[in-house]
């Protein structure tokens, strides 16, 4: 017997280490308790701030009342989306932050797999932004 489990809604971003790891893999500098830059010199605070050489604006991440990280960034000009998003993805989350969101999930999955001694192979579809992991459980 096999099965497929699919989420109906986006997974919550709660694993700080996985989030930081994913951001660094996209080339971001990770700042803590810092001010994120927006258009016209506007600043907004972030428990975590992602700064990237290819974007004049930063991404601030703060936890909501449920402990889930939420994105806050100036999306003007599409700079943030070009760094962290998936072109053509029409969802708000995917278009602006899709690469980061998918990579965050993959980092969480990889961590669990390696903790359990499983082998992991990972592939990225650069057009859709979907990351596929094959986790070998047993032979």
């Amino acid at each position, binding site marked *: *017997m*096999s*099965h*497929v*489990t*699919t*989420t*109906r*809604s*986006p*997974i*919550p971003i*709660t*694993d700080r280490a996985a989030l930081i790891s994913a951001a660094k893999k996209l080339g971001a500098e990770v700042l803590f308790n810092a001010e994120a830059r927006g258009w016209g010199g506007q600043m907004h605070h972030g428990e975590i701030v992602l700064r990237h050489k290819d974007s004049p604006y930063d991404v601030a991440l703060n936890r909501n009342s449920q402990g889930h990280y939420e994105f806050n960034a100036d999306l003007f000009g599409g700079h943030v989306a070009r760094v962290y*998003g*998936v072109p053509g*993805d029409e*969802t708000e*989350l*995917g278009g602006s932050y*899709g*690469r980061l*969101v*998918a*990579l965050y*999930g*993959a980092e*969480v*999955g990889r*961590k*669990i*797999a390696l903790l*359990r001694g499983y082998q992991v192979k990972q592939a990225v579809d650069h057009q*859709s*932004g*979907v*990351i*596929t*992991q*094959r*986790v*070998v*459980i*047993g*032979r």
Partner: protein
Amino acid sequence: MTELVIKYHPDGRVEIEGVGFVGQECLQASLPFEKALGMEDVAREMKDGPAAWQGQQVRGRGEVSS
């Protein structure tokens, strides 16, 4: 060989497919990943199982609806 194929979508959805498992082993294998990823609102599709499971869906944890 038994494996989990996990797809991470840019819109935050995650899909986990168990391949080559026997019985309920696939569910046991995927649960640690579901828990770590915070997958609470999920749909499960059983494959090659008893007819009674076909098309059933699970909402949250342990609450089964058809």
